[in-house]
């Protein structure tokens, strides 16, 4: 009869070596995670619904952030520097224009100076503006020559002062700064991204709640099993583990599904959005979420899943430890 040998083993595995315990632990984890996947697959409807929900909820901020990335395309990138545009008097002759632009080159508050003659300006105007066709109707070229200058000092206040002093020059009719437009666009992008952030936070809370609730119902549907296991000598960790795995898996696969959803919706929106933007803004390519967003989504989803499960498990287990018979 092997009862004495088993008794020590069944009774307390405190006596086995650390190495054996580690091995046991990893084997257990492998079994448990396989078991968690099996259970998710077994309860198909419920798993599907939860994943779908997570996908929808996670897709909303991801979609927003993707669009935001596209919106940022509209603001010139870091290589863009705000320009000072000097519309020159139409009375100046070609040599005068040339001289004037050279004199500007000597100023050390300007980094670069570009002269655009009225012919070149007219051509650009024709190709870019809606009103281009009108130009063909005009007898003579009404456009002035323009000097585009990039200032050394890029801070808006200094640039405004510079604009004023330039406007006072006799050769200059009108001096314009394009920082204002840029500032406005930046404000817009900024407020969109803070909205996206708030939304992402709110919807992360929702994800947390969804997973916590799903795990809660999982736990309560397996309450008898948990109670019996605890009575038989299962540790809290042993009971908790499959639920934590489930939360993690929900989070990860929910995030993955949401990514598909985002690509799908972007594909749907692409054609009409391209037409719309072409109509008002000009060509631009709709881009999907970038790698860092994808990583953030997948890792965020997984972590949220684990935390949600942890919250649910802690709450429910607390109740079980106290109240049950």
């Amino acid at each position: 009869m092997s009862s004495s040998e088993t008794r020590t083993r069944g009774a307390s595995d405190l006596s086995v070596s650390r190495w054996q315990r580690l091995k046991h632990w990893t084997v257990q984890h492998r079994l448990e995670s396989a078991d968690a996947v099996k259970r998710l697959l077994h309860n198909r409807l419920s798993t599907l619904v939860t994943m779908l929900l997570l996908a929808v909820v996670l897709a909303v901020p991801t979609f927003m952030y993707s669009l935001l990335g596209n919106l940022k395309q509209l603001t010139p990138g870091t290589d863009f520097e705000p320009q000072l545009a000097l519309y020159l008097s139409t009375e100046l002759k070609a040599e005068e224009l040339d001289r004037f632009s050279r004199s500007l080159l000597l100023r050390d508050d300007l980094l670069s100076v570009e002269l655009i003659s009225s012919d070149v300006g007219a051509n650009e105007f024709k190709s870019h503006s809606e009103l281009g066709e009108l130009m063909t109707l005009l007898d003579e070229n009404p456009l002035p020559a323009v000097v585009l200058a990039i200032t050394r000092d890029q801070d808006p206040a200094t640039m405004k002062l510079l604009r004023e002093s330039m406007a006072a020059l006799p050769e200059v009719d009108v001096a314009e700064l394009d920082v204002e437009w840029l500032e406005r666009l930046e404000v817009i992008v900024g407020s969109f991204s803070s909205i996206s952030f708030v939304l992402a936070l709110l919807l992360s809370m929702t994800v947390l709640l969804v997973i916590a609730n799903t795990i809660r119902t999982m736990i309560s549907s397996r309450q008898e099993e948990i109670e019996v296991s605890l009575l038989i000598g299962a540790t809290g960790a042993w009971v908790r583990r499959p639920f934590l795995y489930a939360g993690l898996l929900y989070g990860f696969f929910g995030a993955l599904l949401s990514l598909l959803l985002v690509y799908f919706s972007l594909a749907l929106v692409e054609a009409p959005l391209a037409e719309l933007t072409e109509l008002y803004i000009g060509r631009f390519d709709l881009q999907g979420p970038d790698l860092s967003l994808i990583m953030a989504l997948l890792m965020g989803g997984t972590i949220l899943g684990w935390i949600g499960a942890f919250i649910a498990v802690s709450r429910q287990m607390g109740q079980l430890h106290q109240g049950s018979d």
Partner: protein
Amino acid sequence: MAAIQFTNVSKRYDSGQEALKSVDFTLESGEMAFLTGHSGAGKSTLLKLLTRVEQPSRGEVWVGDQNLSELSRSEIPHYRRTLGVVYQNHRLLEDRTVYQNIALPLRIAGFNEEDIGRRVRAALDRVGLLESEQKFPQALSSGEQQRIGIARAIVHKPRVLIADEPTGNLDPRLSLDIMNLFEQFNRIGTTVLIATHDVALIKRMRHRVLILDKGRLRHVQ
């Protein structure tokens, strides 16, 4: 050495119900005893103290060399693995086969699959239900379910075996068989404590009898 020792144990539930009043007794290691008394006398409560599901309001419960009140939360699972418990309403998991049910304590203690298979079948053989291995509890009669519950309690060969009315659902002959099974375990050194109403059986078995009456241990035969 005393396997189970109650010293001046009282238990009052939050509802105010006094289920046990100054209970004192000692069960030697390897002893077998019956716990009896009217309905509501406190039998199940006494067993719940032993499984550390409830804690005494006063007094101390010792099992082996452990004072159950001093067990930390993380020690409880290991303590419970030294027990085998048969429940009144068997508490089998409806969504698992008989085999899976009996394997549960072994899984929890971390046995490997091969060991588990061998031990589960040995336990099933003991209760005479080897052929029901792959059935679900619902497809068994209540007596059969009760025997599966007993198989689960003995599969890991516990030091102490506790049973709450294990024969309430069994016919007299089967009851006797089960009691004989408990006696066999007792003979190889397991301490056994059984709560039961079955007076006829108690008389036949000639073991120590603890009688509870309204929470007081009235009589120790």
